[in-house]
């Protein structure tokens, strides 16, 4: 019998305690996995939407911290940006979270400049695109069509105005799939924000280098006071909701880590106390103290590893259930990268080592004679 199977055997001898310990750890890990997956997914979804549109840089107001920056008058800034080197297109975007029709859940309504490159990444699955800038029609994402129970030809009431659904599209970004898209002119009209946009999307030519983009950013800072040119990643990073959800996930990791380590510490300490005579016998028959320590470490790491693996599965399952709930659909697009999952497994092992350290030292320091007398 090797050391690993001995460790498994020791855990198996106390199934109730081992089960409780694994459950506690798996719950903590599940919370970490679910919250972090949702936080990263939220960030990734916004970034995916910006990247899918083919935008190289975004120009917006410096003070913007919301999911969508505050609207500003685009004309002067847009004209200035068009004169910058390598710039191909400068396209406005206006967005608002609105309820469309009585009793329906709020959805993102995007206004994109008609005929601009922003539309190119959408795949029309039914119907048609708008045929003119001011045609009173919208296209809706496949998820929005499902949530709003709308199809081509149906009517949508947005901010008191009637629109016909001209088409249904699919996008690589979940946020867009759950959105209603119309021309920028129409969006400005219904929101009473003529000439205003939340962001200006800048597309540069293929010859532009990273140094050119850096130069573009500096030029915006120098010539357009109050505005900033940033990448989609930087815009998403400034988003207050992303910051809060990331902070919550970090706090959960910390709390789950501390609780997990304490649970393992407690379990292993109790186990060592109960097995004092047994450890004394092992030391008497010639086991080295290092081997005893190794045995305790194996046991604690097995417990946390099992908790970690179960926790990952539970966390993914919880997120999957949340994603499919009616109220959350289209709002959560959790991301579980392999590197993150490996890190969670690493965290589990670390918990095992941290929680088992003192019990292992205690076991290794036992004097065989005293241990044999232990009741």
């Amino acid at each position, binding site marked *: 019998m090797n050391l690993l199977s001995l460790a498994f055997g020791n855990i198996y001898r106390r199934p109730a305690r081992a089960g409780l310990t694994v459950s506690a750890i798996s719950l903590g890990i599940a919370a970490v996995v679910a919250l972090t997956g949702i936080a990263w997914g939220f960030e990734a979804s916004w970034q995916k939407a910006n990247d899918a549109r083919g935008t190289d840089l975004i120009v917006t107001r410096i003070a913007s911290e919301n999911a969508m920056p505050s609207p500003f008058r685009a004309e002067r800034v847009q004209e200035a940006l068009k004169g910058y080197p390598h710039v191909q297109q400068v396209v406005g975007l206006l967005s608002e979270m609105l309820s469309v029709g009585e009793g329906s859940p709020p959805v993102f309504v995007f206004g994109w400049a008609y005929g601009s490159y922003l539309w190119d990444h959408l795949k029309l699955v039914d119907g048609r695109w708008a045929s003119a800038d001011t045609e009173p029609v919208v296209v809706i994402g496949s998820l929005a069509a499902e949530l709003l129970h709308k199809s081509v030809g149906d009517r949508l009431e947005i901010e008191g105005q009637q629109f016909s659904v001209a088409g249904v599209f699919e996008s690589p970004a979940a946020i867009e799939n759950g959105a209603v898209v119309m021309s920028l002119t129409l969006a400005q009209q219904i929101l*009473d924000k003529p000439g205003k946009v939340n962001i200006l999307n800048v597309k540069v030519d293929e010859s532009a280098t990273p140094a050119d983009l850096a130069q573009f950013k500096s030029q915006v800072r120098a010539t357009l006071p109050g505005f900033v040119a940033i990448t989609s990643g930087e815009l998403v990073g400034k988003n207050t909701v992303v910051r809060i959800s990331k902070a919550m996930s970090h706090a959960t990791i910390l709390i789950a880590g501390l609780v997990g380590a304490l649970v393992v510490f407690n379990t292993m300490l109790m186990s060592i106390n109960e097995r004092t005579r047994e450890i004394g016998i092992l030391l008497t028959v010639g086991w080295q103290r290092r081997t005893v320590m190794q045995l305790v470490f194996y046991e604690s790491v097995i417990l946390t590893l099992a908790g970690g693996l179960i926790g990952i599965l539970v966390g993914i399952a919880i997120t999957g259930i949340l994603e499919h709930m009616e109220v959350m659909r289209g709002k959560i697009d959790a991301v579980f990268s392999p590197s993150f999952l490996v890190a969670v497994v690493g965290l589990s092992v670390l918990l095992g080592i941290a929680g088992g350290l003192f019990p292992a030292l205690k076991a290794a320091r036992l004097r065989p004679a005293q241990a044999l007398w232990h009741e």
Partner: protein
Amino acid sequence: MMRRGSALLLALVLIAPAADGEELAPVAIAQAMRQVRHSDGFAARMNITLVAPTGQRALPIKISIVGQIAAARERLVIRGIAPERIRNRFIAAERSGDGPIRAVTYRESAAAAPAPADSFIPIFDSNLVVWDLFAPWWSWPEPHLGGSARVGEDDCVNVRLHTESAASPIREVVSCVDPNRHLSLRTQLFDGRHSPVRTILVEEAMRQASGRVAARKFSITGADQAVTEIEVYSGDEDYRVSSGTFAALDTPAATGNQPDHAMP
């Protein structure tokens, strides 16, 4: 070195109460609250839900408010967005200096001329009242402090304001102001017999791009315990006011004499 440190500490101790005292002077608070409302043009859209004293909730209505506020003149236009029964029904109101508030109601159709309205009319059957939107109590003389309080998670200082004008149905207002954010967290309005008429309670605030803090979610509770829940879902603090925005206020109906105090 020690002496210099002690002198600095003493100076700080002497300065601190003076600064606090200055900040919490009721006149200064009232002036700051008037000042913070100034805007060359703003627009806000809000969902309004009426909750009956029985707890029954009505379907929300959507309205937009466009305003321009300066010391000399304040103008507002309220437009119904949804549902159909209030769509494109307008209320416009104006106040010059500390004068009376004049209001008109009209519809989008050019055929329908604006009609004079009472500034105390509830906006589309809610507890939101045109008169309250002008917050005229901040111009009332001799405001005084009524001690500190806590509204939700936030500390605030009560400012008591009253008017001797027998014509005004609201005679006393107690506003609990967060002096740092210049935000009234709770505003209690009383009639001449000191009976509560309604209470406006801010439940959620937001910092705008300009740095100003504004209410995002608030409720208005009437004397009958009916509650109006209001949530601002869209805003523009840099709204471009056009020549037509307040045109209804220049019509004969609006420029004629109207009472601003009669209850509906």
